[in-house]
């Protein structure tokens, strides 16, 4: 084992970490209690003196706490373990064997960038939260630390040992796979699912108003809309207002996308990928190949026109942190997806997948259930109408809404059925789904954790079954296939898991 760059002696983080800790503690507190600050800006100053003083005291205590926290934080390397000692009141010693570290991610917000330091997140498999965070480390130290850890992991060395020589020479250099320019990011921002941000905007507006009400500011007073007002507002104004809101929303989403994913670069490094992105918050995520469990990509109606997909590479982890531990590329062409999967699987793997449809009883049953619900609702409507005598306008409205919902469910069920496909070959099993857009999930067969075949009473009668795949990064169900086929695929997957001796993570 080589000299470990002086990591064997305990050392502190960079002093910039103090700023980061203070900043983090303060944002946490402000996020919780921000509405308490509002009285300061909205008058009533005399009554809030005590509040002001207690806030000042609280901030001082928090600042001192952060500084003590910094001076109590030490890390070092012992053999092939990374060790962190920390804690203000009680001392904690955390030992992480290198083999359990599945990725080391660099983060640089604007303060980090000014001082040329980085924040480090060290992810380990199977835990619900990150084991540790380095708030700020000198950039060179972080690079050395990461290189040292990755160079001394046992299972990686094993992989290098079994890889043939030709491959080793090829992968020993860093190779760019994907780079997103500003115009790509603008396209990505424009084609995002804006309904989601609309809901988020409306919901947060509602939440803010509720919080303001809690501290005694009544918004309704300022925005009181009487029935006369509504009548006065011309339809023209309403339409232009909503168009304006949508445009603002789209612009915000584009800007957010550009800032967030600015200069996104995906590089191939020996035995893994390295992803960098962000303007103010610069992120760097490295992921080793053996940790990969699932590759997923999806599009929506708009993105299909541009041939763009969102790509996730999911790693072994508990469900709670799936989001954080996956590599996400917000916009990628189909041919670039192939470029990435070719690093994981042999060249023609994706082209040799044979796809199958699911049984049509899946859609028949869905439509049957929706129809029953629809007809019962209509019967209920008729009954209520008969008993209480609704206005004809009202029952007509309800009828129209019910019929529209019914048609929507039938329509989407048909779309969903048409898109549901599954396919496999020796290496992978792929599941396609989606309603308006498309979703594709590619599982490495031998990395699966287990398989389950289930049957509902109806399926028992029809000799159909669901097949559930358990992976290290979540489950996936193939619905309504022949019981015979489900068992055959199950046997095949078990065979692949049990005979392949490669590391699954």
């Amino acid at each position, binding site marked *: 084992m080589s000299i470990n760059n002086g990591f064997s002696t305990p050392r502190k983080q960079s002093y910039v970490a103090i700023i980061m800790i203070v900043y983090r503690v303060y944002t946490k507190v402000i996020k919780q209690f921000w509405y308490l600050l509002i009285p300061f800006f909205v008058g009533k100053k005399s009554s809030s003196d005590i509040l002001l003083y207690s806030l000042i005291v609280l901030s001082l205590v928090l600042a001192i706490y952060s500084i003590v926290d910094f001076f109590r934080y030490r890390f070092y390397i012992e053999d092939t373990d990374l060790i962190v000692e920390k804690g203000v009141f009680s001392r904690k010693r955390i030992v992480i064997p290198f083999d359990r570290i599945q990725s080391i991610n660099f983060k640089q917000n604007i303060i980090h960038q000014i001082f040329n330091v980085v924040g480090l997140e060290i992810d380990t498999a199977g835990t619900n939260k990150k084991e540790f965070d380095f708030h700020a480390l000198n950039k060179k130290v972080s690079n050395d630390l990461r290189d040292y850890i990755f160079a001394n992991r046992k299972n990686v060395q094993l992989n290098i040992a079994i890889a043939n020589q030709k491959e080793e020479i090829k992968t020993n250099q860093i190779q760019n796979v994907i780079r997103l320019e500003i115009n790509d990011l603008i396209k990505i921002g424009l084609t995002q699912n804006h309904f989601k941000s609309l809901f988020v905007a409306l919901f947060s507006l509602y939440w803010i108003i509720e919080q303001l009400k809690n501290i005694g500011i009544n918004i309704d007073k300022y925005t009181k809309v009487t029935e006369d007002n509504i009548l006065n507002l011309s339809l023209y104004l309403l339409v232009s207002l909503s168009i304006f809101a949508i445009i603002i929303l789209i612009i915000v989403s584009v800007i957010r996308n550009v800032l967030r994913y600015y200069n996104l670069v995906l590089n191939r490094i020996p035995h893994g990928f390295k992803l960098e992105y962000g303007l103010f918050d610069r992120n760097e995520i490295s992921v080793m190949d053996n940790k990969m469990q699932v590759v997923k990509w999806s599009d929506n109606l708009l993105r299909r026109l541009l041939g763009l997909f969102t790509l996730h590479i999911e790693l072994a982890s508990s469900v709670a942190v799936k989001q954080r531990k996956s590599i996400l590329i917000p916009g990628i062409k189909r041919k670039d997806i192939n470029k990435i999967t070719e690093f994981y699987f042999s060249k023609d793997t994706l082209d040799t997948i044979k796809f199958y449809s699911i049984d049509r009883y899946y859609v028949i049953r869905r439509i049957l259930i929706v129809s029953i619900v629809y007809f019962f609702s209509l019967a209920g409507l008729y009954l209520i109408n008969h008993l209480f005598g609704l206005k004809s306008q009202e029952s007509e409205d309800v009828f129209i809404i019910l019929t529209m919902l019914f048609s929507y469910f039938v329509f989407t069920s048909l779309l969903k059925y048409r898109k549901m496909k599954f396919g496999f070959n020796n290496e992978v099993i792929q599941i396609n789904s989606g309603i308006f857009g498309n979703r594709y999930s590619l599982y490495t067969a031998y990395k699966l954790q287990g398989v389950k075949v289930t*049957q509902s009473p109806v399926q028992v009668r029809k000799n159909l079954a669901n097949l559930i795949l358990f992976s290290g990064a979540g489950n996936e169900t193939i619905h309504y296939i022949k019981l015979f086929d489900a068992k055959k695929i199950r046997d095949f997957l078990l065979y692949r898991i049990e005979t392949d001796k490669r590391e699954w993570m």
Partner: protein
Amino acid sequence: MFENIDIDINSLPRVDTKSFISLDENYRTVLILKSLILSVVLIAVFILYYQLMAEKYPLYISVILFVLMLILVLGNIIFAYLGFKRKKYKLRLFDIIYKTGLLWRSETSIPFVRVQHSEVIQDPIERIFKLAKLKLYTAGGHSSDLNVPGLSLHKAEQLKEFVTKRIQEEEEE
């Protein structure tokens, strides 16, 4: 060196449906006892309702609730009785399979190479009957964990030992 040879899917080892092993007969009693405990709770709730609140509502509500309670209690016991026969497991050289379910059936298979750790647990009722449950944990989250209940304590320990041994053997290879 890993080689990716073509596999003929029809030549793969099949899970033979006939040779599944049933659980310990005493476990049927445990299942019925457990559903009886639930029944006692249900009946107690109904009696409480009948004593305290029934006067305020028309009689037919009490009748409906009584019938509902009866269906739940009887259904529970019948399902516990019949469901026992469906609970079976099977050990193979490389994996373990557990199947269960009377109406909603399921068959879970976990290869030993993917088991993270295993344990034998007992709840109070199982302890009376000297029964235990074997739990196998994988990295796929709660839904992919495999539980084999209704084993005699001795057998559960034996199985756990077998699984642990197989995991070690697999790792050494």
